[in-house]
């Protein structure tokens, strides 16, 4: 054997050995999470532009406390690798902020964020282990704890951007007990969903049809009161479609969710258009678009198969519609998704991908 080959032989132990495959597609958890964060920015930007500085402060508070909570818990309590750079804590923070009313007290938002990360995610072991969408856990906690503040909405564009030290102090020092409007200098307003409920009760008691304040175009563009990130269906659609095109999410969950919502609200609207709002307005108002594109599609808490996701989305949409039409809250999107989160393991257990070679009769003599 030649000398070069012998030289090679002496180095044989230095080779790296592993099982196949030996190449990777380069996808990463970080890229996926940051892609979702970026896709949320258009809707968040609309919210901040419409509602003013308190919306911006709330977003910063939520993201900051989400990252801080995960860092402290991972490093000092759980004593495991800190993975805040993966973007999942930032995502929970942004999503929770987008689910809050614009004039919401900052310290309540901070408390909600701590709950979202601690009880919604880290208590299960961290990223990938949680049963429920962490941002929705935070939202559910806040809605149960502070129902008045969580349903206090302001008119878009009514908050003054000329931020003074006094107005900022008023906002920061509020305890939550006093009237919020005095702390943010903004005009209070009823949401489209609130009006849908009023329309139903008015129809029962009065013969004059109730006139809704917002046009369908307002609902689509976002010129309406509501939570920070939910108002502009257009901005949410842009972000959602960007994720579908980049193959981060599939379109089956959002479409089946909105389809389920449209189905039930459509049935009632056809039955009595004076008492019920049309399904398009239902899709464009409240948290339906935010929920369908960004919360129901949370990978960790939704099913693994296409069929499973269609079932999950459809039932989620139906539940959302039923809560909106018959529940005591005007909005049911977040509870609908939380309930479907709980059913996800069951869906994955019973809905399997089609195994190759199953249910096929071998045909050997067709030619």
């Amino acid at each position, binding site marked *: *054997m*030649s000398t*070069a*080959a012998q030289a*090679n*032989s002496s*180095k*044989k132990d*230095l*080779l*790296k*050995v*592993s*099982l*196949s*495959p*030996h*190449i*990777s*597609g380069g*996808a*990463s*958890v970080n*890229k*996926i*999470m940051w892609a979702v964060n970026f896709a949320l920015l258009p809707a968040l930007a609309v919210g901040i532009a419409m509602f003013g500085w308190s919306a911006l402060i709330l977003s910063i508070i939520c993201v900051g406390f989400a990252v801080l909570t995960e860092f402290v818990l991972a490093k000092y309590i759980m004593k495991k690798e800190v*993975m805040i750079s*993966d973007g*999942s804590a930032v995502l929970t923070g942004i999503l929770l902020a987008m689910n809050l009313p614009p004039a919401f007290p900052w310290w309540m938002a901070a408390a909600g964020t701590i709950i979202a990360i601690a009880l919604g995610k880290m208590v299960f072991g*961290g*990223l*990938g*282990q949680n049963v429920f969408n962490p941002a929705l856990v935070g939202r559910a906690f806040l809605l149960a704890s502070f129902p008045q503040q969580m349903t206090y909405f302001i008119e878009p564009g009514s908050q003054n951007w000329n931020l003074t030290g006094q107005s900022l102090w008023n906002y920061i020092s509020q305890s939550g007990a006093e009237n919020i409007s005095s702390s943010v200098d903004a005009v209070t307003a009823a949401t489209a969903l609130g009006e849908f409920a009023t329309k139903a009760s008015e129809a029962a008691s009065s013969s004059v049809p109730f006139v809704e304040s917002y046009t369908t175009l307002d609902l689509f563009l976002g010129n309406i009161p509501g939570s920070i990130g939910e108002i502009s269906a257009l901005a949410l659609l842009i972000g959602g479609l960007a994720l579908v095109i980049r193959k981060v999410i599939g379109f089956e969950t959002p479409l089946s969710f909105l389809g389920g919502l449209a189905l039930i609200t459509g049935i009632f609207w056809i039955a009595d258009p004076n008492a019920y709002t049309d399904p398009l307005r239902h899709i464009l108002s409240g948290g339906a678009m935010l929920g369908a594109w960004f919360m129901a599609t949370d*990978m*960790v*808490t*939704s*099913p*693994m*198969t*296409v069929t499973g996701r269609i079932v999950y989305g459809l039932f989620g949409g139906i539940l959302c519609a039923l809560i909106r039409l018959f529940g005591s809250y005007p909005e049911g999107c977040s509870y609908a998704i939380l309930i479907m989160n709980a059913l996800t393991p069951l869906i*994955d257990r019973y809905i*399997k*991908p*089609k*195994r*190759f*070679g*199953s249910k*096929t009769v*071998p*045909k*050997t*003599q*067709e*030619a």
Partner: protein
Amino acid sequence: MSFPQGGIHPPESKFTAADAIVTLPLAPELHIALHQHIGKPANPLVKVGDEVKKGQLIGESDGLISARIHSSVNGKVKKIDKLKNALGIPQPTIIIIPEADQPPHELPPEPESEMDLAQFSAEQIVKAIQDKGIVGSGGATFPTNVKYMVPDGKSADTLIINGVECEPYLTVDHRLMLECPEQILSGTELLRKALGVERAIIGIEANKPDAITELTNRAKSHPHVSVQALEVKYPQGAEKQLIKAITGRETPSGKLPLDVGCVVNNVGTAMMVYQAVVHEEPFIDRVVTVSGNAVAKPGNYLVPLGTPISYLLEQAGVELIHGMKLILGGPMMGKAVSHIDGPVIKGTSGILVFNPDEASRPAEKPCIRCSRCVHACPMGLEPYFLSALVRTGNYVDAYPQSIMDCVECGSCVYICPADKPLLDYIREGKFKIIQDRRKGKLK
């Protein structure tokens, strides 16, 4: 046209596609393994000190699932011993020192124009395949003659010739289709006759348009043979996926292609069959793609079987450094080399040399249930679930979840954003289930 379920699109990296096949100089010593195929190793027919001729039978097959071994050169038997193969597993091996003067190793010549393939009967063809030690050259190395012994009660109607070469980097089959098209078509004709079917279809992926054109034009003079262009998708070269893509038939779980009326062989195998039947030449050399960023002279080399991999690498200008990875075959399903003096064998389709920075698998991160593994799986399995079952010791529960159907194509690991070693666990589960079955613990 492609298989509908799952699959991925890794970068093709076919850097050697334009490099014509060149014959590798003879190594100073050949290590001819007696186990170059699936099944039992061959029994040696020579002893130390014997003079052997190129093409001489030196190992007789042991039973049905085995294959004959022939000498690649004129030379003298130096030693017969257990030597490590490229994967580090000791195998019975005949070491031959070649004589100085040797007839050259060449690709088989084109058939003469007046040659009539009809002169060969099905029995003659199958016998020649067996006598000349032909096994699947795509990498699986299943003894080819066994596929053409159709058991009673089963029948075939289609012969599929696999020219897909879906593994990145590898360009062996591509080059053979360009340089030996008539030989491949004649081999296909012979195999079709051996099987006794009316149609033979050569499947080629659309990333090899020159091969598609070449074979389609030439197939016009072979009335029973057609060429089917296929959409590029990995793992289309897997037997079940190729049958599905071409005929629409799904081979049921645990069944063979013959159960859906098909037999599949590689284009390289078809060429070897032509060589064995028409030229009566045994399987003693093969084309190997040597590629990768660390290769100074990448290319497609015609290599005598038994050539040490270290010699092949040296000829291709590879400077081995600490932390490199050598891959036997393609990057998706190939096996890592641990012993570089191991020989090139009948199933060695490629040697890839990865630099240290390409050699490591990324560290694993938490699964975010993105479901990409489920959607990438061409067999409709749930890799995340199967690997979790095996990881937690519940591999028995993975059996009803069809773990044994896994073809180990690696698509799930390739696509995984958390870089989970899904297939490592699935392999472990399959292995444990087979062990339990042998012990009679599992049905």
